């Protein structure tokens, strides 16, 4: 009886020590984990950007522009019509480009292709490119995000 009692008392102390150690470990690791996870920066929500004048863009070309912190792609079709998309490939984040020889939007990283409506047509991209609205006021071109 006495030795059983002693053992259970010893077990009890071991548990207390064990939990104490665990608690100590968590209290050391938690701040480190939180520290390496960078704080979320409040990003100014960009809804609209001015990219230039109509004449700056020749028909049959594509231009990368800054949309907030991300790249966008403005294409002027042969017909003179403007279209704009997010230039971030939906596959793995590369920046896409307009290829006049392919009449398509192309990503160099994994040979992904989108048609001129931004739909993914070949290669690994899983989704279409996000489309932006092109608004022309006078001779200035503005790109806006829907909604």
């Amino acid at each position, binding site marked *: 009886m006495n030795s059983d009692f002693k053992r259970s008392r010893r077990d009890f102390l071991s548990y207390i020590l064990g939990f104490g150690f665990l608690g100590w470990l968590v209290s050391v690791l938690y701040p480190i984990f939180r520290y390496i996870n960078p704080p979320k920066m409040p990003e100014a929500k960009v809804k609209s950007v001015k990219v230039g004048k109509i004449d700056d863009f020749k028909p049959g070309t594509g231009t990368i*522009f800054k949309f907030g912190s991300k790249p966008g792609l403005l294409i002027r079709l042969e017909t003179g019509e403007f279209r704009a998309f997010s230039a971030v490939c939906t596959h793995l*984040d590369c920046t896409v480009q307009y290829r006049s020889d392919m009449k398509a939007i192309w990503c160099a990283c994994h040979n992904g292709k989108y048609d001129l409506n931004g739909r993914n047509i070949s290669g*690994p991209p899983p989704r279409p490119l996000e489309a932006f609205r092109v608004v022309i006021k006078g001779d200035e071109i503005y790109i806006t995000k829907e909604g």
Partner: protein
Amino acid sequence: MGVLGEKFFNWFDERYKIRSFIEFMSHKTVPWHRHSIWYYFGGVSLFLFIIQVVTGILLLLYYRVGEDSSYESVQFIVSKVKFGWLIRSIHSWSANLMILAVFIHMFSVYFTKAYRKPRELTWVTGFLLLIFSLTFGFSGYLLPWNELAFFATKVGTEIIGSIPVIGKELLRIVRGGEDVTGATLARFFGLHVAILPGIFTVILFLHLLFIQIQGMSEPPEWEKLPPEKRKYIPFFPNFLLRDLLLWLIILNILAILAVFFPWELGKKADPFAPAPAGIKPEWYFLFMYQTLKLLPAKVLFIEGEFFGLLIFTVAGILWMLVPFWDVKTDKGYRNRLINYIGLFVLIYMLTMTILGYVLD
């Protein structure tokens, strides 16, 4: 040894018992047989690692991490600093040769079954060193902040984001934010010059210690050989001198590569430029890159990238644990399955690497 030398030696021996260590080293032998050539590749990897440490420290004298200074400082090193081009070129070439040597070393150990009992942990530490070497390569690649490095890092890290539940958070930790920016550069720099060298050195020390304690592995065929038929050569000086000769040859090869094929710096990274055509990861990541390219966007409800990542992780873990599931067959040391698996892995990696080069 002169009188002074003897005094010096005795002074140390009295305190640290180095006589027994020297005694041990003088009796060290290396098995001599038709596959002995593979014993050199561990030493070659070690030599190239030492070169990495030395040239890396030299580069640190001028390299300044930052979105506005990384590219410029490397440009300064290769164009203004005397022999800067040489140091930087050797660092890049030696990194590539080191990874090649490590791969050769690994496959030779695998096929000669040198990982078997009692050398399981030598194999495991060796595998960890390979993984850390690849991480060294990946993190160092970004540091010049050029176009290729920028997109390689974007793609390479984005794959982490495909992990369900924790992927997005993990990605932020690795990149130091949502995108690949100066924050990523700072993290990779810290990883490359502080965290990795620390961990790597400890594991390397263990790896070498295990080899010293157990000696070089003997080929499995020797089990049937009577002891007098087994040939050995002394480690000191016979094997060491051969080792050193090979190191000298490697150093010459490095010098030739660095002088005649200097490593390019390329264009500075521009987050608002499209990814350049013909962009590909370093050759040692090509087999994974090519596999991911061939996978469809969805495999059984799982994202293609994550599926690929999962397969490579599982395969890597199995590979690391091979000493624990490779069993001797009844007939003795031969376990053909292991050879077939090894051959499959080797051929798969080679084919995918070649495809990665040839295909768009």
